[in-house]
């Protein structure tokens, strides 16, 4: 508990400061702003959407607190104790805050001293104002998260299922990611919808929109399920309904296998992730099979019964080394 409270406090304090900043800035400039502000600019640079000053403030504050609420829930569930998690959480929240502050100030600056929102002009600094605070916020969040919790859960000795001479052993599982399937279907529907609009010439849909959506939907298909097998060959991962692509990790390349608890946030997110520290296939929450490879990044695969999988791999490795040595 001592660990979670400061994290939640940090989130709440940060969001309160952010809210105060948003309110203070807008109040300070209120005399120089029109009643209705331009909030969105079309491709030609002309403002095409507007909102009242209060609406803008409420909307920005609402997004900030929604992010905070999600962060508090995640922190309270205890899934986010380790440093990397805290880094991701605070980095994400502070980044969101930075972006909100950046976009907010950008809207205010564009509308500053104009008589009517139609005259609001977006400066060239717009992109910088959006990206820089977001990046700075993210960095600050990671720094605030600190390295205090770097000590991970005590690692138990990896399990091993002994393989007698003349014995052959394998383990397999199939993991479905319902969320990914739903997401792919939804995106595919959006692609179909926007394609229909494009063909019908309605709503000025540029062709890259349906094309991009379709690509995203297709890219998601291999991640809707994965078949993982472990045995004499090593570890084989087959993605998607067609069992393709395939990723084979040879037994000889594996140093050790272990069951570990990892949340998707710790290894870079859901789906197939590659970070400087590890490559991860996260299709479900809960236990992961960690493969420590020789001279290469660790591999994390979220599978049920990772304990047995690790036992099989370690058993086979031990048997191989016994015969070799």
């Amino acid at each position, binding site marked *: 508990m001592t660990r979670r409270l400061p994290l939640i406090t940090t989130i709440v304090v940060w969001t309160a400061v952010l809210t105060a900043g948003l309110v203070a800035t807008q109040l300070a400039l209120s005399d120089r702003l029109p009643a209705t502000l331009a909030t969105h600019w079309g491709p030609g640079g002309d403002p095409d959407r507007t909102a009242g000053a209060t609406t803008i403030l409420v909307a920005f504050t609402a997004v900030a607190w929604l992010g905070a609420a999600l962060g508090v829930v995640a922190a309270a569930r205890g899934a986010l104790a380790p440093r990397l998690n805290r880094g991701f959480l605070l980095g994400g929240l502070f980044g969101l805050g930075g972006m909100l502050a950046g976009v907010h100030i950008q809207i205010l600056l564009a509308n500053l001293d104009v008589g009517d929102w139609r005259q609001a002009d977006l400066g060239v600094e717009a992109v910088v104002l959006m990206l820089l605070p977001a990046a700075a916020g993210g960095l600050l969040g990671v720094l605030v998260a600190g390295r205090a919790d770097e000590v991970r859960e005590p690692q138990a000795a990896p399990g091993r299922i002994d393989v007698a001479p003349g014995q052959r052993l394998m383990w397999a*599982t199939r993991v479905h990611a319902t969320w990914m399937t739903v997401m792919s279907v939804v995106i595919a529907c959006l692609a179909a919808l926007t394609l229909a609009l494009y063909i019908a010439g309605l709503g000025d849909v540029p062709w890259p929109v349906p094309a991009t959506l379709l690509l995203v939907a297709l890219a998601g298909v291999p991640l809707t399920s994965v078949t993982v097998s472990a*045995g*004499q*060959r090593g570890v084989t991962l087959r993605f998607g309904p067609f069992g393709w692509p395939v990723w084979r990790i040879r037994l000889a390349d594996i140093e050790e296998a272990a069951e570990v608890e990892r949340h998707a946030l710790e290894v870079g997110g859901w789906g197939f992730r590659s970070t400087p520290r590890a490559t991860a296939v996260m299709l479900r929450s809960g236990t992961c099979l960690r493969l420590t490879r020789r001279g290469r990044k660790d591999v994390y695969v979220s599978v*049920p019964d990772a304990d047995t999988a690790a036992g099989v791999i370690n058993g086979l490795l031990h048997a191989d080394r016994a015969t070799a040595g």
Partner: protein
Amino acid sequence: MLNSIMLLRLESADSRPLHEQLAAGIRRAVADGHWRPGDRLPPARDLAEQLDVNPNTVLRAFRQLRDEQLLEFRRGRGVTVAPRSPGAAAVKEAVHGLIALAAHHGYTRQELITMIEEAP
């Protein structure tokens, strides 16, 4: 959500042929409810590689289980567990165990059938 898990073990010391041992392992996974009706099995090629056996051995086990109506071969969907009541799988597994036990103690299949028929 239930998980599909399978642990297969083949022993060269076992008197049963490899495909029999493999079929028994898959039967067990289905009987234990680890691999459920509609679930797809890993491809025969993966099983053969991971168990270091000939792919034909795996296919033979698959065919045997298909004949027992435990597995289904479907075009484009690979090999899946056939829809059936879990009880049937458990009984089938028990029957296989019984036949093996009877054989071990020198009873023929016919004698076993007679014993079942005479059972109260």
